[in-house]
């Protein structure tokens, strides 16, 4: 095979400039990898979920009732748009495992009808229970793994206040619990929360719900309007304590997956464009310099009859090859990161199968976008090749014209001559200086935009658990209880302080906007669970009126002083209008708070309590757990410390991964920009610098000239990077906040400092890589030749 001489030159150039080529290719690769990772994870997750929902007939509408007769189901099925309805019982129970000292809970769910039922199980091991058996159950896979339970094992639980020993016949997954978040938890914790599917008759008997149900799920006909179905459903369920149906998008597991998908698509919008932009700038810089150096060769080629197109193509090929190297590295990295991501998802989400996408479209798209941005970067430089007439090309380039600028600045800071050289050189190519500065700034920005989240989460934890909800434990009753139950809890071992609360399911509306949530009543002067204002001080609860969390107020477009309509969805179901007396701080979920007395008055009920917040003597906590578990009214026990440690542990695992990934990405950019910038500066000024060596400047002083130029660029980039990173972070906060959680935007000084330190370190490393070349400047060569 004969390789055309120009082709051979492309290959030689690649080899000769390998370090610069690699630096650019790595930046491109980072773009490719983040594109593949983001789009790939998105499509993997999205498609796995869609397929799972489809195959296992995941419901579209979910509704809770207190107790409705099964006969109601026929009426529900008649609602227009309803394809299928399934009546179920959903009840919480307590784990009674002897090896587990701390409390844990399970959710009992009616075993779906096999075949045509909704939310069908994906059986992993064992068999389905005998529908007539009173003991046989199926448990969820995560829970089974956390306790090494399997078919044939027994599961001791407290079911409706009674001790029961259930027999596990199988282990399964369900589309309803892909993200199995236990009540009152912040992270799935399969050790302390499990799903137990129980045959209908057995569950009806255990909860005294013979011939009745407590939850109904609907599958809608394609194209049916969920809102109209929900309206009709709510009318039917209201007499039976219906607390209002929710569409699929509000279903917890689904909503968390949505939140993850949203984050992924935000990531794809931010990271890859940064890399591709920086790579395009690097291509432009490097190619422009190469073309300047090769003016004479270009002129010669044109003079001997190569067309402008052929010469331009030569340089485009050079860039394309760089892009191909980048794409190959990026695809490998993207696939590898994708596999890691799929593994990480497996820790939070339980899917029957979740593999990282192999969709060639995603890889192809990444390749095309990357090629386009590389060529985009080359366009300007290549166009100068096309425009260069052969005669001009043969003559040396017009000497760079420098201008005296900012003389007053010089007088002010009294630059020495090498300093003047640095300043003039930076100003001589303002575009390059600016784009390099922007490139380094992007590295800083990526770090700022990723590192802030840890501080913010810590802030969120601090506010939520150390200033607002300061209880050590919370006991929730199965139903509102009279005051004496509170006194009984107070007498449990280890209880130091006990404060009651009341929860009432309601719909709060303001103009056209409405949200369904639980209003919480607190006693005046609560010490444990406090409602905090924007100033972090506890807010006084008004005798009438209520306080909404910031997120809820935003969702309803409410300001303090506005009136809102409350439709209570339980008890006597009153509808009242209340004034919003204040807006509180809160990051998790939507919340509305009232005085407990006022809430009970609103309900027209005696002083009832839904649960108790507690301060526990640490030494006696095991005794307390045991007592709380044994108390017949207890439905749920939440231990703040356990929930927090699970949250922190998960966070800590992710932090290491995230910091590694983002630091590598930022380093790639910083090194790529700084290295290319210095190589080009060295190539342009090599002659001057060698002349300085002749004049008696030391290696160190000469390196200083080049490094000073770098330092200006890198230092200038810091504040710009902080600003851009801050902006990106702000946009991310907006993109990430949902009804599930809202992330406070807290950027401490340490975030800026860390980002800058990482980038400065990367810049230093690249500078050292150049140092050898400066030390080897050939003084004699430079004297023999004219530039």
């Amino acid at each position, binding site marked *: 095979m004969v390789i055309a001489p120009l082709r051979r030159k492309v290959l030689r150039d690649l080899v000769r400039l390998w370090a610069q080529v690699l630096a650019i290719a790595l930046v491109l690769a980072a773009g490719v990898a983040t594109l593949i990772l983001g789009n790939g994870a998105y499509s993997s997750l999205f498609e796995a979920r869609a397929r799972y929902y489809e195959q296992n007939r995941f419901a579209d509408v979910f509704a809770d009732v207190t107790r409705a007769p099964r006969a109601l189901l026929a009426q529900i099925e008649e609602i227009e748009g309803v394809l299928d309805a399934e009546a179920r019982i959903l009840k919480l129970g307590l784990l009674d495992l002897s090896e587990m000292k701390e409390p844990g809970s399970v959710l009992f769910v009616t075993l779906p009808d096999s075949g045509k039922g909704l939310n069908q199980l994906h059986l992993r091991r064992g068999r389905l229970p005998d529908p007539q058996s009173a003991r046989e159950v199926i448990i969820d896979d995560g829970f089974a793994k956390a306790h090494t339970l399997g078919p044939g094992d027994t599961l001791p639980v407290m079911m409706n206040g009674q001790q029961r020993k259930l027999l596990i016949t199988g282990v399964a997954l369900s589309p309803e619990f892909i993200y199995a978040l236990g009540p009152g938890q912040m992270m799935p914790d399969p050790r302390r929360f499990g799903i137990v599917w129980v045959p209908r008759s057995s569950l009806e008997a255990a909860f005294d719900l013979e011939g009745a149900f407590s939850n109904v799920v609907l599958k809608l006909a394609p194209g049916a309007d969920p809102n109209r179905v929900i309206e009709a459903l709510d009318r039917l369920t209201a007499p039976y304590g219906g607390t209002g149906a929710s569409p699929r998008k509000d279903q917890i597991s689904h909503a968390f997956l949505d939140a993850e998908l949203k984050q992924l698509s935000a990531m794809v919008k931010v990271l890859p464009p940064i890399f591709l932009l920086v790579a395009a700038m690097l291509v432009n810089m490097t190619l422009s310099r190469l073309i300047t150096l090769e003016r004479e060769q270009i002129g010669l080629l044109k003079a001997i009859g190569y067309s402008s197109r052929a010469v331009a193509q030569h340089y485009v090929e050079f860039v394309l090859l760089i892009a191909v190297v980048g794409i190959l590295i990026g695809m490998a990295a993207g696939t590898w990161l994708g596999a890691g991501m799929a593994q990480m998802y497996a820790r939070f989400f339980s899917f029957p199968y979740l593999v990282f996408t192999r969709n060639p479209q995603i890889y192809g798209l990444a390749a095309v976008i990357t090629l386009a941005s590389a060529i985009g970067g080359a366009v300007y430089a290549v166009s100068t090749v096309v425009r260069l007439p052969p005669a001009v090309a043969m003559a040396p380039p017009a*000497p*760079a*014209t*420098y201008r*005296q600028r900012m003389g007053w600045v010089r007088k002010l800071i009294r630059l*020495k*001559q*090498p300093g*003047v*050289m640095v300043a*003039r*050189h930076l100003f*001589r190519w303002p575009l390059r200086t600016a784009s390099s500065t922007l490139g380094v700034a992007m590295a800083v920005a990526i770090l700022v935009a990723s590192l802030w989240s840890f501080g913010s989460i810590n802030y969120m934890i601090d506010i939520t658990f150390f200033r607002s909800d300061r209880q050590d434990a919370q006991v929730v009753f199965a139903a509102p209880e009279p005051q004496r139950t509170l006194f009984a809890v107070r007498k449990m071992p280890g209880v130091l302080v006990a404060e009651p609360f009341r929860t009432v399911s309601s719909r709060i509306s303001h103009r056209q906007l409405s949200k369904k949530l639980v209003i919480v009543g607190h006693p005046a002067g609560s010490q444990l669970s406090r409602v905090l204002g924007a100033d972090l001080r506890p807010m006084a609860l008004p005798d009438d009126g209520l306080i909404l969390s910031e997120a809820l107020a935003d969702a309803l477009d409410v300001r303090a002083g506005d009136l809102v309509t409350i439709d209570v969805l339980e008890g006597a179901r009153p509808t009242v209008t209340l004034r919003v007396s204040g807006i509180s701080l809160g990051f998790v979920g939507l919340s509305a708070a009232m005085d407990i007395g006022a809430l009970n008055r609103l309900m027209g009920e005696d002083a009832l309590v839904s649960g108790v917040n507690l301060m526990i003597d640490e030494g006696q906590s095991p005794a307390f757990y045991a007592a709380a578990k044994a108390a017949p009214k207890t439905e749920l026990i939440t231990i703040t410390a356990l929930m927090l440690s699970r949250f922190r542990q998960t966070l800590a695992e992710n932090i290491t991964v995230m910091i590694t990934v983002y630091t590598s990405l930022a380093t790639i950019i910083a090194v790529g920009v700084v290295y290319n910038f210095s190589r080009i500066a060295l190539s342009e000024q090599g*002659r*001057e610098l060698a*002349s*300085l*060596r*002749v*004049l*008696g*400047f*030391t*290696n160190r*002083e000469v390196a200083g000239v080049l490094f000073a130029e770098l330092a200006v660029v890198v230092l200038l980039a810091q504040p710009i990077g902080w600003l851009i990173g801050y902006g990106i972070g702000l946009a991310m906060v907006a993109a990430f906040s949902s009804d599930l959680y809202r992330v406070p935007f807290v950027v401490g000084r340490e975030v800026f400092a860390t980002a800058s330190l990482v980038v400065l370190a990367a810049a230093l490393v690249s500078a050292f890589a150049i140092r050898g070349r400066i030390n080897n400047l050939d*003084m*004699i060569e*430079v*004297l*023999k*030749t*004219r*530039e």
Partner: protein
Amino acid sequence: MTPNPDIVFRASGLTKVYRNGALEVHALRGINFQARKGEFIVILGPSGSGKSTFLNIVGGLDTATAGEAWFADHQLTALNEKGLTQYRRDHVGFVFQFYNLVPSLTARENVQLVTEIARHPMTADEALALVGLSERADHFPAQLSGGEQQRVAIARAIAKNPEVLLCDEPTGALDSATGIKVLEALTQVNRAVGATTLVITHNAAIRDIADRVIRFADGRIVEESVNTTKKAASEVVW
């Protein structure tokens, strides 16, 4: 041997061999040489005879393969990289064929480049006045003619009050009229500063302004003549 305090340069048996793989190029084959303080020496010789190699070694830009070279009481051939840098910085002024000015600095600033790091410099303006360029001090190299650029290079070389001034074909890129101006500048500076001056040239006519003329051929000094009738630069014709 007691060094004569009047002798600035001494070289004995100075040899330089370039090795390119198996190929050896003997650029210098044992040079013995002395120069007195303030002497103006012109070096002639055919292309490739080793003139630049010699100048570069005594200027501390290059190292010899064998032999000794001394500047006053510094043995140049024993100095390391750092020592040579210091030697150039403190004692030597260079003028080259291609000026080698820093394009981003004005004439004055190019001179200041040296005065800032020198031990006993004159001011940049004094140096520029010596070469007759006071008017053009604020111009960038790109705005100056070749001869003017070369005079700036000379001003830069002498501004540190060097003991030696080494010039490699300073008029090589210039026409004769301009070349004469540059030579005038050199002789005047030689007189004013008292620097020992070595000038490589291909122009035999320049020999008339020298105190002494040395001829190189094939890596050796083949002829040495003392000029008794020294002319002024303006009297030279070529």
